[in-house]
């Protein structure tokens, strides 16, 4: 239905994520790489479903994890073509090695890295701020305030990436990623031809080369700074009342404007959309105004930078001085209050309203895996199940209460191993199929090499369910992978997680939990939603074929 909306309108109504995707298509990318993760998933999905992208033979499709995605994008950039790589904020942790080093190699064809942050942790383990990563890598970073800017900045980002031969980071946050608004397209640009870097040693980070490349990166800082100082993404908007100067980064600018319906803000405002932070405009604001208020989603990066360590200088208000809460995303009311505005009392939340947390779907295969596992563990003390991230993490909630950890993708296997190494047995790992190929395989190899006594349960629902049912890199490969890693054939057991086989499955769990060594159990049944979608698509295909043959 949403696709239909698009087709009927001259202006495209796009999610922030989709604006980025359309921007990338129009800016002449040759490939997009990504691993799913809320709120970034729709960027890749849009390109996968785009007819234009298909016609232009733009490479798309899900990677095994963010690091492989980042490296493939860098490889494409090496050939002189434009590439974009997208991930959620914690994905950048996984890709960090490649990401940081790509700043040292530099880019050849334009290279854009999109990181979608999730302040307030709507669907994440933390609210880390990717702007830090931009600063850490010492590369230019962009932060759009709305969908149109996101679209425009993709074009601009590729231009400066090629101008300075450097990867460029774009940071967005949940609300921009998942809010729909009108976007006007620019003219499309053809893809680059293959042209290798002039210096074929540029990408060899042997110390001797790396030192040279690093010096080059340091020297480039002045250029990045100058670009940012002159960028239209950073706007100084004057105001008559100099008692306060406001710095508004990215989407916080919209929340600020919302509080001034006539669009007249009495105070000077520095609207920031590009990093490194522009010095002349920031200095002007600091010099002219009595106090500064900093509005930024995520960490108080700018506030810390312009504030004084010793509390000298002008008063800087923001998340550090308590004007705004240290955690959580911003909204119009929080921004209004930070300006001293008073809001009328709203109606209270009626007391009849009770919580309705998300839960495993009725009939979800994970339910039956947990039921059998729980029963198999009844005679052991609690606290033995190390788990991971995915739909199955909801096994932490009642009525299952089945898992004890969830830290980062892949950690279930390695944490279980650490616990087993400490003499804590049995130690069980519960991990999803996509999470296993993302970051579980290497941990399993560690366990095999150490012959750590762990039972690894790989819940194979043939999809990346949590993020909406993307194609899983693991499908059809799990047993072979485990065997090749060195798990004994007799201890790789596939089961059907259905109530029909409860007793049988429970006994398998019991037996393997007692086994001294690495065993892998694979409960295998398709996610209900993925199955429903597949059946629908197959039916459609059949009907089409029938029409064709008639």
């Amino acid at each position: 239905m949403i696709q239909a909306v698009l087709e009927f309108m001259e202006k495209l109504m796009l999610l922030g994520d989709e604006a980025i995707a359309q921007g990338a298509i129009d800016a002449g990318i040759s490939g997009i790489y990504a691993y799913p993760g809320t709120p970034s998933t729709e960027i890749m999905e849009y390109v996968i479903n785009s007819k234009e992208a298909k016609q232009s033979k733009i490479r798309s499709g899900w990677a095994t994890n963010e690091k492989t995605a980042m490296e493939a994008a860098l490889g494409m950039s090496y050939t002189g073509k434009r590439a974009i790589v997208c991930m959620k904020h914690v994905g950048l942790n996984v890709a960090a090695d490649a990401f940081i080093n790509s700043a040292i190699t530099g880019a050849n064809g334009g290279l854009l890295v999109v990181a979608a942050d999730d302040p307030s942790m709507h669907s994440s383990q933390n609210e880390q701020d990717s702007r830090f990563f931009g600063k850490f890598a010492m590369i230019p970073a962009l932060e759009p305030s709305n969908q149109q800017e996101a679209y425009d900045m993709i074009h601009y980002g590729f231009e400066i990436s090629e101008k300075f031969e450097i990867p460029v980071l774009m940071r967005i946050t949940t609300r921009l990623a998942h809010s729909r608004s009108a976007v006007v397209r620019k003219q499309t640009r053809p893809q680059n031809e293959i042209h290798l870097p002039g210096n074929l040693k540029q990408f060899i980070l042997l110390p001797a080369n790396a030192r040279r490349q690093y010096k080059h990166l340091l020297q480039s800082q002045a250029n990045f700074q100058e670009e940012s100082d002159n960028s239209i993404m950073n706007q100084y908007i004057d105001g008559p009342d100099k008692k306060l100067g406001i710095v508004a980064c990215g989407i916080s600018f919209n929340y600020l404007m919302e509080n001034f319906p006539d669009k007249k803000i009495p105070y000077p405002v520095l609207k920031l959309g590009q990093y490194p932070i522009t010095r002349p405009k920031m200095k002007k604001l600091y010099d002219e105004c009595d106090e500064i208020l900093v509005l930024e989603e995520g960490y108080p990066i700018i506030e810390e930078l312009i504030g004084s360590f010793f509390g000298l200088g002008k008063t800087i208000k923001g998340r550090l001085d308590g004007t705004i809460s240290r955690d959580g995303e911003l909204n119009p009311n929080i921004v209004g209050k930070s300006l001293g505005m008073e809001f009328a009392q709203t109606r209270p939340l009626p007391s009849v309203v009770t919580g309705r947390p998300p839960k495993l779907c009725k009939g979800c295969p994970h339910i039956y895996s947990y039921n059998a596992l729980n029963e198999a563990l009844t005679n052991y003390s609690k606290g033995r199940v190390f788990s991971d991230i995915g739909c199955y993490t909801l096994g932490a909630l009642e009525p299952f209460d089945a898992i004890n950890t969830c830290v980062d993708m892949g950690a279930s296997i390695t944490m279980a191993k650490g616990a087993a190494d400490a003499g804590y047995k049995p130690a069980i790992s519960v991990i999803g199929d996509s999470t296993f190929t993302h970051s579980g395989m290497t941990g399993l190899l560690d366990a095999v090499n150490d012959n750590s006594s762990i039972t690894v349960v790989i819940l194979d629902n043939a999809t990346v369910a949590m993020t909406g049912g993307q194609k899983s890199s693991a499908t059809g490969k799990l047993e072979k992978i485990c065997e090749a890693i060195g798990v004994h054939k007799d201890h790789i057991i596939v089961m059907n997680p259905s109530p029909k086989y409860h007793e049988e499955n429970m006994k398998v769990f019991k037996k393997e939990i007692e086994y001294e060594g690495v065993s892998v159990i694979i409960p295998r049944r398709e996610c209900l939603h993925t199955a429903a979608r597949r059946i629908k698509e197959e039916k459609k295909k059949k009907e089409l074929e029938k029409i064709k043959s008639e």
Partner: protein
Amino acid sequence: MKKDIILAGVGGQGILSIAAVIGMAAIDNGLYMKQAEVHGMSQRGGDVHSDLRISDREIASDLIPEGKADMIISVEPMESLRYVPMLAPDGWIITNINPYVNITNYPDMDDILKEIKSIPNHIALDANKMADEIGSKKSANMVILGAASLFLGLKYEHLENAIAKLFKNKGVDVIEINLKALAAGKIFADNYNKN
């Protein structure tokens, strides 16, 4: 003209189909629109909502400020109440009265209805039953939209056009049923107001 609308329901109930119709009617008439959607957590059964803003002037924030929503359109009764703190003093609640019970402590329906009726501007309707009578359970959301159509500041035929466009690929019958559902909701709301 400016309408801030909160769409509410439970994951999987398809609140975005209502958003798509309103959004398309608004855009086709040259209005601005912003719509913050809910994505992620693909499991069904959690509470979900979407902020939909339409206006003849440019819209700044993707999120509706607290206490400023003109309307809550909900496909589930308890969910309509979850966003009451967002509602403007003279705002409307338009909600289906069929509970989606997937929690053990779902409150008493009488208490929920009492609370809905304590909001001066409300319309509570049995959209499932009305959709069923028309012959398509699936079009309950369009019944609710029909009831809300009185307060959207959009011409009724623009909503009809939007439905025709959006369901074009699904065939004439589907369009017909959804238009009927829309009309049923509108007639209900017309009479509700008179009482």
